């Protein structure tokens, strides 16, 4: 059984991360942007796991756990903010959240 080379994982991770970035910058819906952030985090997780596996070291796995915990906490706070925004604006369009504009 041949081992899948690490470059495959990294290319996949990079593609996922790039998709996350593009969505993060160009999407208008706050929840979509939120999901784009999650996508980027998980792309990084994939890279971490791939490196951990390739070099037989646990450090990468430990990082992944931390990232998941941070992502969970972020989801809790972020969704609360999203709900508050919706209650105030009756919209999830990011363009409408511009009170601090010049």
């Amino acid at each position: 059984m041949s081992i899948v080379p690490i470059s495959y994982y990294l290319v996949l991770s990079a593609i996922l991360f790039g998709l996350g970035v593009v969505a993060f910058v160009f999407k208008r819906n706050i929840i979509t942007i939120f999901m784009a952030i999650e996508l980027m985090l998980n792309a990084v997780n994939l890279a971490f796991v791939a490196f951990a596996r390739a070099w037989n070291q646990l450090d990468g796995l430990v990082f992944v756990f931390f990232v998941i915990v941070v992502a969970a906490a972020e989801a809790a706070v972020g969704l609360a903010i999203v709900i508050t925004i919706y209650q105030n604006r009756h919209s999830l369009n990011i363009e409408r959240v511009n009170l601090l504009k010049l």
Partner: protein
Amino acid sequence: MPILDHLWIILALPLAGAAINGLLGKNWPKVAINSVGIGSVSLSFLSVLEAIREFSLLPADQFAFFKNYFNWIVAGSFKVDFALQMDHLTIVMLLVVTFVSLLVHIYSVGYMAHDEGYYRFFAYMNLFVFFMLTLVLAANIVLMFVGWEGVGLCSYLLIGFWFLKQSAISAGKKAFLTTRIGDFGFTIGILLLFWTFSSVDFGTVFAKAANMPAESATQAGVLTWICLLLFAGAIGKSAQLPLYVWLPDAMEGPTPVSALIHAATMVTAGVYMVARMHPLFSRAPIAMFVVALVGAVTAFYAATIALVQTDIKKVLAYSTVSQLGYMFLGCGVGAYAAGIFHLMTHAFFKGLLFLAAGSVIHAMGGEQDMRLMGGLRKQIPATYWTMFIATLAIAGIPGFAGFFSKDEILDAAGSGPHANITFWLLGLAAAGLTSFYMFRLIFLTFFGKPRFDEHEVHVHESPRNMTVPLMILAFLSIVGGWFAAPHLLGKTDYFEAFLHPVFSAYGVPPGIEQGASLAGAAGEAGGISPSPAMELFHALTGPPVILAVIGLLVAWWFYIRRPDAPKKLAERVHGLYTLLLNKYYVDEIYAILFIRPFLWISTNVLWHVVDERVIDGTVNGFADVAREAGGQARELQSGNARSYATWVVIGAVGFTALMLGVWGMVR
């Protein structure tokens, strides 16, 4: 020895008085302010007496008592201690300062009775006494300089005491700035002194100077420069040519201030300083010559201005300048003891003259112009008699204090080891002029018919607390010179003998005898020893006495016998009269030569260019740059969440690129 070991007590008492009155006394009743103000000075005076008693118990070979309390400044090899010292010269100054201060404080209770700033006045006066005593007791020149500047500060505060009066403010400013010119030289002198001797302690410096030979009379060495720079400070503080202009204006202050600060004590600080630094001056013939020259010329010059002044205090102010010139003349011809002697007698009679003038002004309801006085003799007899005695003393009538001291100075100038016939003649002429203008003052003020509306002005004698100090000072103006009286009979001059330990302690450079009167015994060495009676006869009929009497008679002729004569004379020599009346236009000349150019430079260069363009321009420039940069950077903060997201991505990409680049370089 309770006081001598704690000399600081003498200083601390007036300082405490100033602090208590100045900080707390605003709403206190006058009794409380009086007891603090006068109490502190009188306790200080008693401490001085006790210190002198203890000083006299010291072994005879110890001519100075020195005590270091703490190190004040230590920086490398530069060390200044808070150290006080006491010797015979200090004793004379301490007695004069504390006693005259005490009398002036008592007098002020009456004079300032109706003044708003009563507590402020006494606080300033006490502060002045503190600084003056610091100046006198200091054992190094830096501490002396503290006192020196401190009395200048109090002088400024008290000249401008009535600070709602524009002229008083200007006079205070003028006094402060003019003396600052001299103090500039004084400061450099201190630096040069330290540079030369690596010490600022009087004892150390003098001991080192004692081993130095006297400098030549043709080439200025370092001692000469030190002395000349220090003397520049004395010129400012003691109102000598060319920096005397502040003293006449200083008469804007309350009269007790004029008596204490601008006649008896502060202005004599320069004379004290020269006498204190005598080991240096004695070795610098050029500096000595300059001191004598400035003194003699000032003595004559100021006396000529005093001849025609009409303000009673202005006459006394110019008289003070002239008498200070005498003191410097005495010091400059090597007769330090005579200079200090004149300082003491002058403190008595000039202090008295000012206080009595204050009493006259008080009686006239604030009038200072002598042309509007006259005939006050009967109405204010106590003031009249005391002032008359002081006039006899300052004019040099035999038997009164001024006669002895002035005689000694002229004696030293005429026949001492540094005798100079020109200075002697100038001094003599000044003596004649002094007699004339002082009797002119007396005759105009107290004799003749009243030249004021007697229904308007209610002339009244001053209260007891003003006249009693006058009487005490009058008594001292008579007997104050008697220490020197045996000298007229060819015996010891007790005053000079008293100061002899100080002025002989650091040796005399070869070829220079110290103390004119000690050398005055040269007549005996020559084999001719006149009998005491002959000496007395000579002293009583010498040129100074003759000139004094002539001055008196001329004044009598002009102002009693022929009251219309002065006007005729003034018309005949109109040019000279106008010149004197306008004080030789010195203020105007200074205005053209110095003040206006400085004002022009200050306004057009320093203000409008250096301050407004360079300094303000730099600061404003920084502010403008910051504002511009902020305005540009503000655009980034658009408030649009998506642009932030873009920036985050750009930042992340940039950071990654940077890391890759750095990693690439490391590898």
